[in-house]
C-alpha cells in the first residue's frame, strides 16, 4: 500500500470530495495562493480555481458564519482555521449557529459543514498558540468532533466529515502532519463514532487520541520490555464517542489510563473516566488514572514545554501506578 503523510492524506481527502461533489468548497486564511499555512491545501487552488478555494481575510467569526450561511442553503463548506487557537474568536458562530440551526429550524436547515485545522500544542509557539480545545467543542450537542491520529484515519474520517449532514469539528494534530502511514489508493470512509484498538494488550488500557496515540504506542513498546502488554484504544471521534469499544477494553484489562494533551480540569478524559467507571466499576482493579498536560498556560522555552506536555515516561509511570508497581 502507498505510504503517505498525514498532510497528504488530508489533502487527498479534500481533493477527492471536491471532485466528487460540486457543492464542496474550501475557505480559510492562506488556503489558496499560499497553498495553506501548513500546506494541507497544496495544489487545490490550481485544481479548483478561486471559486472553490477561497482565501479569506483574517475574520474567523465572519468566514465561519459565511460557511454556515452557505451550508444552510445547500453548499457543503470546509472552513479551515489556520489553527484551532483562532477558532475562539469564531466559537459563537459554531456553538450558537452551526450547532443549533438544525434544531432551531426544527430540522428544516441541516448544516453540513466541516471546521478543520490543526489543534494542540506544536513546538515552542507559547501559550496563545498551544491549546487543545476538544473538550469545549465536545461539550456541545449538534456538533460532531473528530481527531485522527494516523494518515489512514485522517483521510477516512475527513471524507466522512465532508459527507456528514452535521457540523463537524475536525481537529488535526499539528505535530502529526509529517507522520507517514499506509493509505490505500482505493476510496474508503471511516464512519464517525467508531473507535479503533491501535494495539492489543491484556494488562492495561491506554485511551488516547490525536498526537497522544503515538506517545501511547511508544509507551506500550517500553512497557512490553517489562512484560506489560498495554492495549491502546483510539476513539478517533470524541463526539459521538464509541464508549463501547473503550469499555470492552477496560473490562478485559481491568485497568485504565487516559492520556490527553489538554489541560486536566474538565478535559475530555474526565468524561471518558466517568463513562468507564460507570460501566466497569466492578472490573476495575485500580482507580482510573489520567495523564494530561500540566494545568498551566504553555511556556515557550523548550525544556519547560517538555515538562508540561505528557511524555512517554509519564504514560509509563501512570501505568505502573494503576498496576501498583510504583
Amino acid at each position: 500500500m502507498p505510504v503517505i503523510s498525514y498532510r497528504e492524506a488530508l489533502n487527498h481527502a479534500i481533493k477527492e470530495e471536491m471532485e466528487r461533489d460540486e457543492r464542496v468548497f474550501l475557505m480559510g486564511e492562506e488556503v489558496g495562493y499560499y497553498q495553506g499555512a501548513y500546506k494541507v491545501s497544496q495544489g487545490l487552488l490550481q485544481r479548483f480555481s478561486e471559486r472553490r478555494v477561497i482565501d479569506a481575510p483574517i475574520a474567523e467569526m465572519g468566514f465561519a458564519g459565511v460557511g454556515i450561511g452557505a451550508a444552510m442553503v445547500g453548499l457543503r463548506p470546509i472552513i479551515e482555521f489556520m489553527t484551532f487557537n483562532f477558532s475562539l474568536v469564531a466559537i459563537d458562530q459554531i456553538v450558537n449557529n452551526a450547532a443549533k440551526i438544525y434544531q432551531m429550524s426544527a430540522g428544516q436547515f441541516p448544516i453540513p459543514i466541516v471546521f478543520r485545522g490543526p489543534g494542540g500544542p506544536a513546538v515552542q509557539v507559547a501559550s496563545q498558540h498551544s491549546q487543545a480545545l476538544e473538550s469545549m467543542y465536545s461539550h456541545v450537542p449538534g456538533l460532531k468532533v473528530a481527531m485522527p491520529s494516523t494518515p489512514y484515519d485522517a483521510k477516512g474520517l475527513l471524507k466522512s466529515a465532508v459527507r456528514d449532514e452535521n457540523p463537524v469539528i475536525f481537529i488535526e494534530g499539528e505535530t502529526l502532519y509529517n507522520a507517514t502511514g499506509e493509505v490505500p489508493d482505493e476510496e474508503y470512509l471511516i464512519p464517525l463514532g467508531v473507535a479503533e484498538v491501535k494495539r492489543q494488550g491484556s494488562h492495561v488500557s491506554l485511551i488516547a487520541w490525536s498526537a497522544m496515540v503515538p506517545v501511547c504506542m511508544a509507551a506500550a513498546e517500553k512497557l512490553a520490555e517489562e512484560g506489560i502488554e498495554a492495549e491502546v484504544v483510539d476513539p478517533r471521534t470524541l463526539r459521538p464517542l464509541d464508549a463501547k469499544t473503550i469499555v470492552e477494553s477496560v473490562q478485559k484489562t481491568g485497568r485504565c489510563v487516559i492520556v490527553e494533551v489538554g489541560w486536566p480540569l474538565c478535559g475530555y478524559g474526565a468524561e471518558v473516566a466517568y463513562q468507564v467507571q460507570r460501566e466497569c466499576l466492578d472490573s476495575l482493579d485500580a482507580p482510573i488514572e489520567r495523564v494530561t498536560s500540566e494545568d498551566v498556560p504553555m511556556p515557550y522555552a523548550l525544556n519547560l514545554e517538555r515538562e508540561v506536555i505528557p511524555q512517554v515516561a509519564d504514560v509509563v509511570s501512570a501505568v505502573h501506578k494503576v498496576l501498583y508497581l510504583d
Partner: protein
Amino acid sequence: MRRIEPEEDTPDTSTKEELIPLYRQILAIRRMEEAAAKAYSQGKIGGFLHLIIGQEAVCVGAVSTLRRDDYVVATYREHGHAYAKGVSSRAILAELYGKKTGVVKGLGGSMHIFDKPTSFLGGYGIVGGHVPIAAGAGFASKYRGDGRVTLCFFGEGSSTIGGFQEGIALAALWKLPVVFICENNLYSMGTPLYRSLAVEDVSMRALAHGMARDRLDGDDVIRVRRRIQIAVDRARESGEPTLVEVRTYRFRGHSMSDPGLYRTREEVDEWKRRDPLAIARRRLVDECGASEEELRAVEDEVKKEIADAIRFAEDSPAADEYRPYVTKESPTGD
C-alpha cells in the same frame, strides 16, 4: 425628532394596486403583534417577546421588493419580517404558543422563526451573529449564480459588534448580493443612539469597505419600497452589497418585560403621529382614491385572519418532540 429627509419630502406616488397589499401586511403584522402581547400578558406565551409595533413599514416595504426565492435573515424581532416573507400568522402565533403546529414545532419560539418554503433563513438571538450568515447566503448565490438576493436586518445597536463588522466587510470584499438593512429605532434596549454610537449615521459604516449606502425614514412604506428596490436591483444586477439605514421607532418597550421608562411620553407620542399604519392608510385615501369600504373590507379580513390564527394557536396540540432535531442522520456515522 431626528428625521433624515426634510419634513417636506414627499415620497413617490403610488397606486391602490401597489399600496393595498402593503397596507394589508402592515395592518396584519400590527394586529398579530397586539394579539401576541395580549396572549403574553395572559401567560400563554413565554420567554422573551420583542414586538415590532411602529416599525412595520420597514420590513413590509423592504421584503416587498423580493422574489419568493430570495433570502431574508433577521433578528429576534422578526415576526413582521417572517410574515412579510410569507409565513402565515397561524404558523407564527402557534410557534409563540409553543405548539406542535408552530413554524418550528415549538422549538424556537418568538426569537427563532425559520421557514424553508419562503426562504426565511431565521430569527437569531445573538446580536450580530446572523450578519455573516446572511453574507453566507449571498456567497452561495454568487457561487451558484442563482441570481438570488439576501436581505439582512439588524438594529443600530448591533452595528458595532464584530459579527456585523466582519460580515459586511466580507460581503464588500467578495461583492456578495446582500442588502444590509439597519432598522435604526434610536434605542438599543434602554440605550439611546448617542450613548451607543460615536457617529449616528450608521450607513457611514459602509465607507471603510467601499460599499454603496443609503439612509431614509421608515415611516412611509412606499419610500422604503422604492429605496430598497434600488439596493436590491444593484445586488441582483451587479452582485454588489448595500448598507441601508432606515430610521424608525418602536412604540412598545424593547421586549414585554421592558416598561420603557427611558423615553418620554412626548417623544413616543410624537413618533406615534408618524405611525406607518396611519400614513399608509392616509395615502390610500388621499392619493390612491381608495374608498372607506375597500379599506374596511381589508381591515375586516385582517381581523378575521388574526382571530383565526389565535384560535388555531390555542387549539393546536402542545409541542411534543425535540430529540430528532439535534443531529441529522448521515450516510456515515450515527
